[in-house]
């Protein structure tokens, strides 16, 4: 977040022509990898994320086995060519933090107590980054979990709200994040009304927070519908194949 020197909102429209409360073009596909138990490709505009799920399976390390539930492992990783400047492949502090918050955004819906002493592994690769990589990752991981047949209480959908040129806007991209003054990613299990991820990078008043949360909820609802359609499409396709 640096000072907003660039005018990004003009006449109620954003630099890419979107309205304030409009999502980018969202694409989703499941079952894109054969080796993984579940997988998904999710695109929010130019942001592209792949998620793969392995498990429930024997934990990689013995000490990870929990007697009463599955261990959830999660890695968020950015491909070296996904960013403007080439990213070194070693995990950054940012990637380590995001792996944790993404795991904690998914744990509240996974019925992990059904698979004691196992591990459910979620591997996320950001292959092109244009803002919103963590929210696209959560959306993708949730689909990959469903594709792997992991029982869940609900899907988790996620999107960020930003504050740009003084306006609250939905699903900010990289330019808006760079020149905006706040970025608030939110993840929810919409059917349960549970907020499973909330971060704020920037400064807001209490009133702005409430507005931003409502904007995020509206976006999440739309994404959730696309998730459900994507899964339905897969099931139907499978049936047709029979």
């Amino acid at each position, binding site marked *: 977040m640096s000072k907003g020197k660039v005018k990004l909102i003009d006449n109620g429209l954003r630099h890419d022509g979107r309205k304030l409360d409009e999502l980018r073009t969202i694409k989703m596909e499941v079952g894109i990898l054969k080796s993984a138990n579940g997988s998904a490709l999710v695109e929010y505009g130019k942001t592209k994320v792949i998620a793969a799920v392995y498990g429930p399976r024997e934990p990689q390390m013995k000490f990870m086995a929990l007697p009463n539930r599955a261990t959830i492992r999660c890695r968020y990783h950015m491909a070296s060519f996904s960013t403007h400047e080439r990213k070194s492949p070693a995990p950054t*502090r940012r990637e380590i933090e995001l792996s944790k*918050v993404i795991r904690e955004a998914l744990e509240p819906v996974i019925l992990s107590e059904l698979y004691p002493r196992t591990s459910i592994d979620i591997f996320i690769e950001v292959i092109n980054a244009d803002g919103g990589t963590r929210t696209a990752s959560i959306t993708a991981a949730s689909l990959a979990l469903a594709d792997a047949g992991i029982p869940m209480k609900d899907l988790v959908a996620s999107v960020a709200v930003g504050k740009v040129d003084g306006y609250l806007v939905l699903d900010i991209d990289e330019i808006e994040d760079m020149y905006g003054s706040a970025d608030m990613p939110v993840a929810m299990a919409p059917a349960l009304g549970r907020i*499973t991820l909330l971060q704020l990078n920037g*400064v807001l008043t209490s009133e702005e927070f409430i507005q931003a949360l409502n904007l995020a*909820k509206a976006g999440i609802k739309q994404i959730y519908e696309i998730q459900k359609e994507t899964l339905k499409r897969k099931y139907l396709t499978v049936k047709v194949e029979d």
Partner: protein
Amino acid sequence: MSFTPTTEYLVPKLKLETLLAILGRGVRLNGRRLDEYRPISIITDYIPNADGSALVKLGNTQVLVGIKLEVGTPYPDTPNDGNLIINAEFMPTASPIFEPGPPDENAIELARVIDRGIRESRAVDLSKLALIPGKRVWNLWVDIYVLDHDGNLIDASSMGVLAALSTTKVPKAEIKENNEVVIDKTVRTSQLSINKYVTTVTVAKIGEHLLVDPDLEEESLMDAKLIVSVTDDGLIAGLQKSGPGYFTEEELMKAISIGLNKGKELIDIIKGSVQASPQVV
């Protein structure tokens, strides 16, 4: 790679029921009210070799923060600003489950949440930390050492960072040829410039109850926590839901409101602790 924590603190899960029952009556197992912090003590100027420092005791939790100013090179996108670098280490002295090694995800999350609160609120005036604009700036190293862990490391660290920054004295810097800068730490030319005060307030959720400043036992029983970064002018300068559980919308609103209220109290305590420190005039 992040995974579900497997080193459980030795708190019997039975205790959870007792705790929930008592929380329903507005008190905690440790006798505190739901919105009550443990006693807070902050000693500044504790480390002679640091340029600023603070030892914070929050109940039995102890955190030591040290600041070092060194000559560095600015980042291309902020050529005239000093570099703020915040690290946290959970020392093996602090807990039977901490081992030496590079910071784990918890230490990294702690450092990054505090960093965002300070950076986004512009608490430190980094523009005052240029030495040769575009070429040489101060590196402002903030190192957080957790010495004793009895819960709520982040609020203890966050208070310690602010207290240490507020009492940091900038050493004399002489600019030579070829962008060389010679530092003389025996002479202090100014206080580090603080724009505003910011701290975190941690609100833990246990069952349906929200309580501040969870101790280690409460952390082992909680569902999740919300870390609210709060400025002295009453703004939200950062949020982080942490832990495997969730919040409802209503709980979030309540937690943020608690955060804004308690933040004022904590900032007053930090400001008080800073009074005792000698000032560079």
